[in-house]
């Protein structure tokens, strides 16, 4: 539980973040992907749910364990993974919500973080040839606000992963994507600000009109 107070001195005014990816890959059984022996007859897919670094680095320096909460129909549905890679591979036939709890190293004296991931087995587009691998991966950043001094030490001694500049087969999230997103947001923001100004002018005009009417 909560470590002694000597551990909880915090470095004020700063935050440190680490990017992570979470999600799943799934592929239907085929010649390449063989059905594991002993898996139930009605299972159709092999899938893996994971929490990992965008560049595949080891995350165990700040993540102690990851607990995946699978559907209750699985044997021992709560899977606690205490060492990297933080992932669970299973077979199944249906999609469901997986609860992911990330526990941090004790030096951080932080509570765990909860995420939810919808297990994806089927592609969005059902028409045409089903792809060999279905992916559903999300980008997220874990932000340590005012980390403890020990944690600060840990986090600053190991650099985090930087996003690659361009999308490629291995990296779905990149700086380019971030820039595009920022551009889109900037564009939308300027559009909204324009509308705000228009509305404001209109409001002032109407206010005047009303004054004239009532006076």
């Amino acid at each position: 539980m909560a470590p002694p107070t000597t551990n909880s001195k915090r470095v004020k005014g700063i935050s440190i973040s680490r990017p992570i990816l979470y999600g799943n890959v799934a592929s239907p059984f085929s010649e390449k992907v063989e059905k594991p022996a002993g898996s139930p007859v009605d299972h159709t897919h092999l899938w893996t749910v994971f929490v990992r670094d965008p560049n595949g680095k080891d995350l165990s320096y700040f993540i102690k364990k990851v607990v995946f909460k699978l559907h209750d129909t699985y044997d021992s549905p709560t899977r606690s993974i205490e060492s990297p890679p933080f992932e669970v591979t299973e077979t199944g036939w249906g999609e469901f919500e997986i609860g992911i709890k990330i526990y941090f190293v004790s030096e951080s004296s932080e509570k765990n973080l909860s995420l939810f991931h919808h297990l994806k087995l089927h592609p969005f587009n059902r028409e045409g040839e089903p792809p060999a691998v279905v992916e559903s991966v999300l980008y997220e950043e874990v932000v340590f606000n005012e980390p403890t001094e020990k944690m600060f030490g840990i986090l600053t001694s190991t650099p985090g992963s930087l996003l690659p500049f361009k999308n490629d087969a291995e990296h779905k999230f990149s700086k380019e994507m971030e820039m595009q997103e920022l551009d889109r947001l900037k564009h939308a923001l300027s559009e909204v600000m324009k509308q705000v100004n228009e509305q404001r002018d209109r409001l002032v005009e109407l206010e005047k009109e009303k004054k004239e009417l009532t006076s």
Partner: protein
Amino acid sequence: MSSSDILDVLNIQSSHVQKKRPGDAKPAGPKKKKQGTMNRELYNLIGQNAPPIAMEKTSKFKSRLNSSVKTTPWSYTSFVNEARQDGLELHHWIKGSSDLAKDKEYPFAKFNSKINIPELTEDNYKESLGSEDWSFEETKHLFELANDFDINWFVIYDRYDFDGAERSLEDLKERFYDACEKLLTKKYESSYTDEKTQTLIDNLKSFDKSKELERKEYLSRLLQRNPTEIAEEQSLVIEARKFELSAKKMLQERAGLLQLLDSAQSTGSVSQYLTSQGLTQLYNNLMLADKGKKRKVEVPVPPQIDSSLIRGSDKHKKITAASIAPESAKKPEPLTHASEMLAKRLSAEEREIYGLTIHQDKISAGVNLRSNKISSYKPAVQAKIASTLNELGISTKPTIPTGKVCEKFDELLHAISILLETKRQTDKLETEIRLIQSQRED
């Protein structure tokens, strides 16, 4: 020598002083007890144990009326009612002696008042009241009825019967008032009219048949409402009151919003903070202001950590060391690392690798997900924001929630919320103006 002796010497009789004399006090006690219903022998048997309930004999009957006032004499006297023409003498009982009432007027005679209706003759009819609709005879009939029934219009209307003429109550009123007015004007044409008559004439002139009919129509409609209509009306009144209240509130809100939108931009120049000295000074000022708030200040990181801004870093190192110094005694090990880290001038890229952000404003400690930090709004607003985002072609959650993206996203959400609020206000104002305009047109 007691006080009573002095009183005796001075020849003063004082009853209350006497009662206090110890000699009198003793017999007063038992005497009181004897006044009860129990006889003494029985009481003595009981001794000191007084019964819990006081038993007292109460009389069964009301006490006899014991009035000392003398009865008032009434006398049977005769009287003449002055209101009567026939001088009939009647008798009645009056209070007091009969002599008193001898010369007095009969008190109820004054109620037999007569309304002063102008006289209608054939001459003045011809002179000023000529009308095709109303013949002299009919007018005369109306005047007679008015005279007979003291202008009680409903009675007049009931008794009105002239050649089978169909006259409404308002017709009668109109004719009568009009005729009276003309007669009075004629009468006082040449001579001076006193104020009373003048107001009477004015009042007579002001009678408007159509208005009177309208008024009666309204009244009858009011009386003929059915319960559902009454309920509806009441609910409408309540609703109207609510509208008034909300309008007041909205006006305040709008004023607030306008003020917010028109608020002055920051005019101060940032140039004075661009040098390292300026920045240090600003930082010190802020620190002082913080201390003034009596909050425990424990910020080891001065804001000038960005190497691009710092030329002379000695100062900043000093500050860092100074602010951390008290802690170093207790925990030297992790601290040295932290201060080392902070003392190192990190480039923007390095800071990005470590995901290090320095916050000027207060942040809450603890671990969090970046995308959870995006501000949320009231559910109703949130839904509208979502639809606006949809229109702009932005998904409701950022696809790649990095720090920068989340910041921008937050900014966007805030702008949209302002836009929605402004829109709401303009819409309201528009409907208000339309309402005013439609009221004007009516």
